[in-house]
């Protein structure tokens, strides 16, 4: 009788503990792994809420603000200008999550000082175009992937949501040559039309 009672008490305690662990994880969802759809540059990743495609990756040393009186922004490493086409499928969708991930799993956010896109909004069936500018260390370029999805308004995670994991196709040869670039491009953000990067010739200013 005593053994049976002990088993019952232990069972109840185990059930409460497991329930608490599940509930506390579900509260934020921070630890939940996203559902990944893999793709590569030029190929569309079909997610449950939208289609995502990387249409171009361009290295640059400088990104020039749209306001012509402001100074150009110089990369600490090398700027990667990643052009993305995002199309929602069911309802207006904001794609808030866009991170580059290197081969060691390090995550890079879009550069705030470059004044390019930080998020993009799309209506169902209406493609939205965005250019994200990432400042990446010169020895971390090869094998970079773009993780892209709805993201979280509060946390830098995808919280168990569906995301696109897109290989940017950057090779070891690119990693050797791209850091030598002196190219400068006008900062672009988002548009309803495809975005053509505009090359800029820099002029020195007196200090």
């Amino acid at each position, binding site marked *: 009788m005593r053994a049976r009672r002990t088993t019952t008490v232990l069972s109840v305690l185990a059930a409460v503990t497991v*329930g608490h662990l599940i509930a506390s994880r*579900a509260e934020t969802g921070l630890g939940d792994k996203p559902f990944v759809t893999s793709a590569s540059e030029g190929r569309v990743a079909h997610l449950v809420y939208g289609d995502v495609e990387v249409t171009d990756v361009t290295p640059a040393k400088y990104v020039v603000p749209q306001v012509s009186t402001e100074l150009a922004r110089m990369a600490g490493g090398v700027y990667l200008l990643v052009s993305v086409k995002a199309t929602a499928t069911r309802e207006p969708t904001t794609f808030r999550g866009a991170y580059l991930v290197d081969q060691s799993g390090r995550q890079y956010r879009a550069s705030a000082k470059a004044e390019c896109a930080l998020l993009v909004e799309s*209506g*169902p*069936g*209406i*493609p939205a175009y965005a250019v994200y500018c990432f400042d990446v260390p010169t020895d971390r370029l090869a094998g970079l992937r773009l993780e892209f999805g709805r993201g979280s308004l509060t946390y830098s995670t995808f919280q168990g949501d569906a995301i696109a994991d897109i290989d940017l196709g950057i090779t070891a040869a690119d990693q050797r040559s791209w850091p030598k670039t002196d190219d400068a491009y006008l900062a672009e953000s988002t*548009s*309803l*039309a495809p975005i053509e990067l505009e090359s800029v010739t820099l002029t020195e200013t007196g200090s």
Partner: protein
Amino acid sequence: MRRGWWRENRFWLPALPLALAGLLLASSYNVKEYWYDNGLHDELASAGPGTFASATDHYDDGRGPTSRTFSVRLAALGTTDVYPDEEDRGPGRPPKGVGAVVVYLDWEAPTDQVLRGCTVSVVDDQGRRYDVDTSTFVNSCTPEGHAGPQAPFGSTDERGTVPEGEERRETWSTRTVILVPLGREITQVRVWWETPDYVQLSAS
């Protein structure tokens, strides 16, 4: 199984489904926050074409709980080749493969009701929703330049403050342009401020 076991648990076994139902109910509180409150799920009022729908929308402003009361009807749906381009600050054509739907609405509301900052959406026959670009159409539900009272931002702000010259009449009409892919059939118009509440106007 021993017959005695069933007899011994004859009260607990029927209680098991009820306990499970209670467990699911108690742990589903996140469904409201993450799903119900996060989308358009609460229809305040609805009406057919040309008929007014009257609604009272309860919400919180900077001072606390309040509400807005208004009536709205779908006067007509149309199309246009001219879409206001926010970047160019001027009219342009919609993107390739995309059309511009014009939503004509008639409104009635007391002049002290806060109706700024609404969103007008259209829904197609497959249930896909298209919203007005709120960065281009900031006040889709009020007459241009006469949006009426502002909502207080903080607890020390007054309610009912109307910027000089922006007083609103009791009846007015609005015209909103929404981008929709070509070939989609619009069946509903929705007017809303904050999810989950909305007013639905049938287009047919």
